[in-house]
């Protein structure tokens, strides 16, 4: 609450909401939607099913990886993660767009005039939830794959790196979805952008084409993550791959904060 000379002061020493209060408020908004738990359960179970299925039948030919099937390839097959990426992006977009379509955003902004703090709290909630989902999918999928593939096929190098990069990937998608949602403010529009960016571009662009296509593909979170899991086809160095993912996440947060802060509503 902002301090005005004539406004009666609230009892107690607190003048402004603590970050925890903002996070709690955003959490209530996020979790009280019936579609949130449904979407999360669907996402996680589909991803685990695909990981188990890849372990039994081999990965999709279009994923581009070759060589013998090992648990890490099966669990972190790029194509099988596309639904999870799109889902995380849509969840992030919904967190923002839902407020605009119901008009709740006006109440939110009136209650907490420091809008940057709202963006940060929202981003924190979305990041925590999608990061948790990524942990379940990554670690669970790898465990399933190890259990199913009995053959002495060693896990590729760096299984922990694969899990950590996945925990970075889904929140990055969600934050990007939030940024699109903030910019577009329209449910269908932001959903289309999220689907096209995370669903279609990885299928269309490969880092095996000409120079332009390779650079464009390598700039996508999908291929950066694929480089880190060892199951994808990104052709950059590991450090650049981490930086690409982190840059997407950071740019998304900055765009969300600036767009919300600079606009009227």
């Amino acid at each position, binding site marked *: 609450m902002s301090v005005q000379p004539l406004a009666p002061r609230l009892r107690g020493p607190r003048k402004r909401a603590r970050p925890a209060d903002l996070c709690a408020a955003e959490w209530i908004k996020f979790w009280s939607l019936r579609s949130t738990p449904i979407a999360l359960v669907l996402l996680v179970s589909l991803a685990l099913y695909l990981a188990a299925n890849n372990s039994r039948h081999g990965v999709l030919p279009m994923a581009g990886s070759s060589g013998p099937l090992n648990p890490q390839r099966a669990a972190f097959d790029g194509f099988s993660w596309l639904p999870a990426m799109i889902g995380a992006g849509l969840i992030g977009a919904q967190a923002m767009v839902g407020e605009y379509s119901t008009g709740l955003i006006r109440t939110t902004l009136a209650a907490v005039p420091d809008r940057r703090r709202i963006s940060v709290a929202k981003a924190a909630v979305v990041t925590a939830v999608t990061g948790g989902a990524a942990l379940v999918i990554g670690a669970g999928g790898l465990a399933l794959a190890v259990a199913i593939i009995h053959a002495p096929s060693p896990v590729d190098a760096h299984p922990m790196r694969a899990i950590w990069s996945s925990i970075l990937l889904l929140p990055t998608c969600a934050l990007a979805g939030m940024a699109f949602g903030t910019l577009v403010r329209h*449910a269908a529009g932001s959903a289309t952008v999220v*689907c096209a960016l995370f669903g279609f571009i990885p299928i269309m662009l490969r880092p095996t084409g000409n120079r332009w296509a390779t650079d464009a593909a390598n700039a996508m979170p999908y291929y950066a993550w694929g480089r880190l899991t060892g199951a994808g086809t990104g052709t950059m160095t590991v450090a650049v791959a981490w930086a690409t993912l982190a840059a997407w996440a950071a740019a998304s947060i900055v765009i969300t904060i600036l767009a919300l802060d600079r606009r009227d509503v």
Partner: protein
Amino acid sequence: MNTHMRAGHVRFGDLVAAEWIKIRSLRSTFGLMVFGVLFAAVAAWWQGHHVRVAPGAAAAFNPLIYPYDQLTWAFITVLAATFGALTITGEYASGLIRTTFVAVPARRRVILAKSLVVALCMAVFGLIASLASLYIAGYALTGQLSGLSLGQGAALRAAILSAALPVLGSQIGIAIGALIRHPLSAIGATWGVLLLLPTMLASGTIGLGTATEGMPLSAWMTLARTASTGAHQSPLPPSTAAWILILAWPLASLIVTATTVTRRDV
């Protein structure tokens, strides 16, 4: 319009006019279509531009796969489906659907009018995108491959079928939109069904490889003869089945939409 209206039913033409106003007044509709046409044009040029045919080997190439690239037209179809889903979820999201159904209690007629207007819009969109693809790819392939003009029977057939593809996609989108009613989820489901599911089915990992043959894009590839001869060719339905499929998808979608909307409260 007359101030005194006839009692009883509104004419079907009035419903079509009402649906047309709803669509026309959205700015995003126009943007989506312009983007789709531009995408088709650029993709056709890109596909044709990179082809190098050895002299004398042209007979071994099917020129139709350049203007009517599978991935490009999968994208065009899913854009059209997004548009279809938008037209119905938009009404649910804004609450306009209540007004619509109060004004016209015969909900099937509303759905029929909406489907008709969306189909007409998508036919125009599909026709422009299809012709642009054909002639731009033909231009990019000048001197290498011939047969990319409407004078050729195969090209004419592929152009018409490709123009019909967005119509088909939009009806699927309307059905998914009527089932889910929530814009974000409906669009996510549409892209999942039309873009990701066929790829997953085709890979055989789900264990339903034959179901790939039933997808709309597979029927289109059979009939328009636009299947690429890549390493991972997905199974295609035979010609008769493809004709049935390409008619059954929009009809089934229309029935699903009409049934869902009539059975529910709102």
